């Protein structure tokens, strides 16, 4: 079943989203949050950032056949200052890690991270006996959505990005602050 055939209810059994919605939201701010989140989720601009073969799949996701643009993600930004989401598409080595951290720091709030592919999730094929590879990008920056695969197909990335949209939908100003505080890497 393709992502198009999925009903809205099919997305509902996501545990992490349940947890997020269970944390509750301020009654006064709910409507404001809804409007802000609606705006944020429908114009997620990714950073032009790819370190490996996952980047090819990311480009394929942006190209006409799979077409990110349907969901408002088409505008790849070459500057982190203008990007909302960084898709970590590929292996991060120890030499690259400070650069990735800097790129993330340069992005303005609200910012989101998608770890795409086995390498960004855990080091993947380089998990064992590798001296150079960071074993998962969450050691460097906080991750919102993990997209497994090696590399994930564009459909999988699209699904991950839709999950990110759903995550944004459930966020409140409060939960956003908590999320940032829990990932204080300074």
């Amino acid at each position: 079943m393709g992502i198009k055939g999925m009903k809205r209810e099919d997305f509902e059994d996501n545990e992490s989203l349940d947890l997020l919605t269970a944390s509750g939201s301020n009654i006064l701010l709910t409507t404001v949050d809804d409007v802000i989140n609606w705006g944020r989720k429908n114009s997620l601009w990714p950073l032009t950032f790819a370190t490996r073969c996952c980047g090819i799949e990311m480009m394929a996701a942006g190209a006409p056949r799979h077409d990110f643009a349907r969901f408002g993600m088409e505008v790849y930004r070459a500057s982190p200052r203008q990007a909302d989401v960084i898709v970590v598409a590929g292996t991060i080595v120890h030499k690259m890690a400070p650069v990735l951290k800097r790129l993330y720091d340069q992005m303005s709030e609200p910012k989101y991270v998608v770890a795409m592919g086995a390498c960004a999730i855990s080091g993947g094929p380089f998990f064992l006996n590798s001296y150079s590879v960071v074993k998962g990008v969450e050691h460097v920056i906080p991750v919102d959505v993990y997209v497994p695969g090696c590399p994930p197909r564009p459909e999988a990335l699209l699904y991950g990005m839709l999950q990110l949209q759903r995550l944004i939908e459930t966020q409140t100003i409060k939960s956003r602050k908590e999320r940032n505080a829990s990932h204080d890497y300074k």
Partner: protein
Amino acid sequence: MDKIQLGEFINSIAGALEIKEGNQYLEVTVPPSLLYKLARQLREKEESQFDFLFCITGVDYGADLGVIYHLRSTIYDHSVVLKTRTSDRENPILDSVADIWHAADFHEREVYDLLGIKFKNHPDLRRLFLDNSWGFPLRKDYVDDVNIVTK
């Protein structure tokens, strides 16, 4: 020249060396002391003219450290592989061939970076990829409890 002629030619200029016919290339094992001289002759002799060094590989054999040179002649289209090894793990030093083939400059820096093999007379022997806080990570006895996960 084909492999047999090449083998005879190398023996004629460098004395009796251990020469093996591999699947693809003729493999010549050279002691480190003869390596530079043989390399220069292979480059300069009219009959061989190995003008292209297309790969340098550093190897950790366990007890020994070694370097493998892949040579090719763009004039005669023949290739040869030179292998050399040293048993000194503490301070392995081999002669640099960077003044014969300029390509060896970066290749030797890479071998030095990852295996710690030093090259005598190299023009600029600094680390290539890693900074000085690293050891030599491709050595078999390299230990890093923080970054390396082993089974």
